């Protein structure tokens, strides 16, 4: 999708249509998440601070991000895409891969299918998208990035060598600035050069990903389109939540309250997925973006918010804070599934029943309807898209 968040906000507010505007993280802090194409014409880019964006475009209109709008619109788009193929892989909230192999007799060739998708997205949602058609995901993604907005690029097997020969390696999905610099050190700047580099040279420098890099340079990608449903079949390795605070915070009591809130959310997701975990991790990011994580191994696997909170709090108290904190994260790993047993002792049994009753109430009336008194004034964190978000509702664990 093109400038997805900004385009949705322009749909939601007719006064913003055709205007230079940008969606930002929040009114208190954050950066430009999605500038409209009208704003991009003034040089406004994703990742700019407010100040930079306003200097580039003094009349810029700003809208705080409203993730509920974007996630619901994404769900509706998935509904459209699924009318063209059952194999839809969501790459991000505004990008998806469709495998239309075998759909030709029913829906026409891939070019016709792409045109019909673009028509439906426009007619039903008044949004534009750029589509890349290619033999694999790597090239399809490349094609979709080559023409924006409202683009349509077809890369046939015969085109691959010509397209890649002089293309800078950074244009390939998966090669970021750091990898680009590492490749440049050994004299590789274009995909053509990457594809011709001897495998031994790449594996000597990059290890196991050397072969993958050479394949990328040749436009080879065997990764299949994984339908959304298959994701739910894979067991989770860890479950966590984090929050960027409205203001940098050095108040330990307040940070502990945030940790309790996060631990409760993590506990709820663990219980929903019938998981217990033995390792609790605490992540803190200081005001200067220096980030560190510490973890604690527990004797018993846990899935109760209070147990997770106590372990995370102990980690917090091990050291003094070097600076005010801007982000707090709590996660649980070393997961085991379906291993719970009925507690032997009355106290534990009562806690299990109370927790079950609280979960039922919160499932019905919303998270934190019944919670700890200290979370009555919890941090409202509605302006982000949770990593647990999935079409049709949050991931069940």
């Amino acid at each position, binding site marked *: 999708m093109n400038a997805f968040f900004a385009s949705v906000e322009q749909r939601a*507010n007719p*006064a913003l249509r055709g205007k230079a505007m940008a969606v930002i993280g929040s009114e208190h802090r954050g950066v430009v998440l999605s500038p409209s194409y009208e704003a991009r014409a003034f040089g406004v880019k994703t990742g700019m601070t407010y100040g930079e964006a306003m200097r580039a475009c003094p009349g810029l209109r*700003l*809208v*705080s991000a409203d993730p509920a709008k974007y996630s619901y619109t994404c769900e509706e788009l998935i509904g459209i895409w699924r009318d063209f193929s059952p194999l839809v892989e969501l790459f991000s909230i505004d990008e998806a891969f469709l495998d239309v192999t075998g759909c030709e007799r029913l829906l026409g060739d891939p070019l016709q299918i792409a045109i019909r998708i673009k028509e439906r997205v426009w007619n039903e949602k008044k949004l534009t998208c750029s589509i890349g058609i290619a033999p694999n995901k790597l090239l399809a993604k490349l094609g979709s990035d080559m023409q924006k907005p409202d683009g349509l690029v077809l890369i046939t097997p015969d085109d691959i060598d010509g397209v890649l020969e002089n293309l800078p390696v950074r244009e390939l999905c998966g090669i970021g600035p750091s990898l680009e610099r590492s490749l440049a050190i050994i004299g590789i700047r274009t995909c053509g050069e990457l594809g011709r580099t001897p495998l031994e040279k790449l594996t000597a420098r990059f290890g196991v990903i050397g072969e993958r890099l050479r394949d990328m340079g040749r436009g080879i990608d065997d990764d299949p389109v994984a339908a959304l449903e298959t994701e739910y079949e894979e067991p989770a390795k860890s479950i966590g939540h984090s929050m960027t605070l409205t203001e940098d915070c050095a108040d330990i009591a307040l940070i502990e309250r945030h940790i309790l809130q996060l631990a409760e959310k993590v506990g709820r997701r663990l219980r929903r997925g019938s998981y217990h975990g033995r390792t609790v991790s605490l992540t803190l990011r200081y005001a200067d973006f220096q980030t560190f994580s510490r973890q604690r191994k527990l004797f018993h696997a846990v899935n109760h918010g209070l147990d997770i909170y106590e372990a995370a709090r102990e980690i917090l108290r091990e050291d003094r804070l070097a600076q005010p904190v801007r982000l707090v994260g709590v996660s649980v790993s070393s997961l085991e599934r379906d291993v719970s047993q009925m507690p032997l002792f009355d106290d534990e049994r009562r806690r299990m029943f109370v927790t079950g009753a609280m979960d039922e109430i919160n499932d*019905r009336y919303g998270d934190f309807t019944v919670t700890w008194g200290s979370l009555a004034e919890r941090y409202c964190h509605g302006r982000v898209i949770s990593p647990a978000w999935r079409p049709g509702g949050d991931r069940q664990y």
Partner: protein
Amino acid sequence: MIFMSVERNELISVCAEFSGGAVKPVWFSLKGRRIRVEEIALIWKTREGSTPILHFSVTDGQGLYEIRYNTGTFSWRLTASA
């Protein structure tokens, strides 16, 4: 900085059409004034627990309003205006 809307949370009376499984606000009262919905610019859904909430971004040709319908309590609220 120019922010486009102000958050609000006011219970409002709404005249709406319920037809074919869809809800369409026609007008609503705000401080004794009747605001006629000229365009429903965007509709989206969220949940509060198990209760679906319908959100509407609507205009009367001059102002922009976000109103929400709680399908559990059958109540309408004005949540933002610009």
